[in-house]
C-alpha cells in the first residue's frame, strides 16, 4: 500500500521528535513564583510568529532570521520573592534527562558572589546540533530553556549583542560596547 508508506514516511519526517526534547516538570514552582514566564512555540507557531516580526525593526529582524532555522522554543522561567523556593532536586531532575551520548554540557559557569549558575548543553545527532538546553539558577530565579533544531551556536551567542544587551568584543574583554536598559 504505497499511500500508507508515503503517509507513514511523512508522519515520521514531520515528527522527527521536533517536539520539546526533555520534560521540564516544573509546574509546582509556578504556584510559589511571584513572576512566571512560559514560552512554548513549536515550528508552526514559530513560522506564524515570523509573519508578525518586522523587518524594519533590527531586533525583530534578527529574531526572525534566528527562528527561521528552529523547530521549537520552550522556556519556563520563575522569579520568587524569597530564597529556597526551588530545590536542587528540581535542577537534578532536568539534568538527569540530558543523557550522553546525545547530550553534552559545553559550558558551565558558577558564581559564588551572586550565586548565579548557568549551564549550556548541546544535543548532537548524526554529527549535527539538534538542540540546546539552558539551565540557569539564582537564589530567587529558576530558568530552563530548550531550543530545538539545528541551532547555530554562533548566531545564538550573537544574541548577546541584540535586544539591548552588551556584545562581547572579539578580543574577549569584558567591557561592554554599549548598554541599554531592557
Amino acid at each position, binding site marked *: 500500500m504505497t*499511500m*500508507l508508506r508515503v*503517509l*507513514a514516511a*511523512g*508522519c*515520521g519526517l*514531520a*515528527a522527527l*521528535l521536533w*517536539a520539546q526534547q526533555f520534560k521540564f516538570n516544573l509546574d509546582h514552582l509556578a504556584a510559589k513564583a511571584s513572576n512566571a514566564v512560559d514560552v512554548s512555540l513549536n515550528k*508552526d507557531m514559530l513560522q506564524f510568529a515570523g509573519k508578525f516580526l518586522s523587518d524594519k525593526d533590527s531586533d525583530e529582524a534578527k529574531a526572525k532570521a534566528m527562528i527561521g532555522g528552529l523547530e521549537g522554543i520552550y522556556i519556563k522561567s520563575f522569579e520568587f520573592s524569597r530564597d529556597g523556593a526551588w530545590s536542587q532536586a528540581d535542577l537534578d531532575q532536568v539534568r538527569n534527562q540530558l543523557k550522553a551520548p546525545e547530550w553534552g554540557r559545553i559550558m558551565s559557569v558558577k558564581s559564588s558572589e551572586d550565586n548565579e549558575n548557568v549551564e549550556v548543553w548541546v544535543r548532537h545527532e548524526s554529527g549535527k546540533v539538534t538542540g540546546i538546553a539552558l539551565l540557569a539558577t539564582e537564589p530567587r530565579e529558576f530558568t530552563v530553556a530548550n531550543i530545538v533544531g539545528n541551532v547555530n551556536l554562533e548566531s545564538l551567542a550573537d544574541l548577546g549583542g541584540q535586544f539591548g544587551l552588551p556584545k562581547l568584543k572579539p578580543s574577549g574583554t569584558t567591557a561592554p560596547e554599549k548598554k541599554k536598559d531592557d
Partner: protein
Amino acid sequence: MVFSVAYHFLHDRELAEEIAQDVFLSLHRNLGALESAAHAAHWLRKVAVQRSIDAARRRSRRPQVALDDVAEPGERPAPGDPLLGELLRKLIATLPEGQRMAMVLRYQEDLDPSEIAAVMGIPLGTVKSHIQRSLALLREKLARRGVGER
C-alpha cells in the same frame, strides 16, 4: 491495518473501504498535529475503531448474520482448515460491537488488553471481560458444531 480493522469488524468489504478512505483523508488533514510515527499509528488505529463502530451503529439493519443463524458447515472444519477461518470470521461478526472490536484488536492487531482499553476508551476490566466472554461464546458455538481441540 485500517481497512482490515474495519473489514473484520463490519464484515463488509465495500463499507470497510469507505471507512479506510475516510480515515486516510483525515490523516492527510491532520498530519501536522502528529508528533511521531508511533503517534500516527495509534491515531490511525483509534480513528479506525471509532469510525467502524459509528458505521455499525448507523446501519439500520441488525448484524448481517445472527449468531444462531450461522449455518453449520457441511463438513466439520478442523483446526488449521480455511473453512474454520471463515466460520470464525462470521461468528466474530455477530458479536456485540464492544466484544467484536476488542477481539479484532486483540487477534488482528495483537494488542494487549491495556492497549485495547486505551484505543477504545473503555476500562481495562471491560476489555478483559469482552475477550473472555467472546472466547467462551466462540468455544461453545464451535463445540456445538463439533469443532474443537483434538
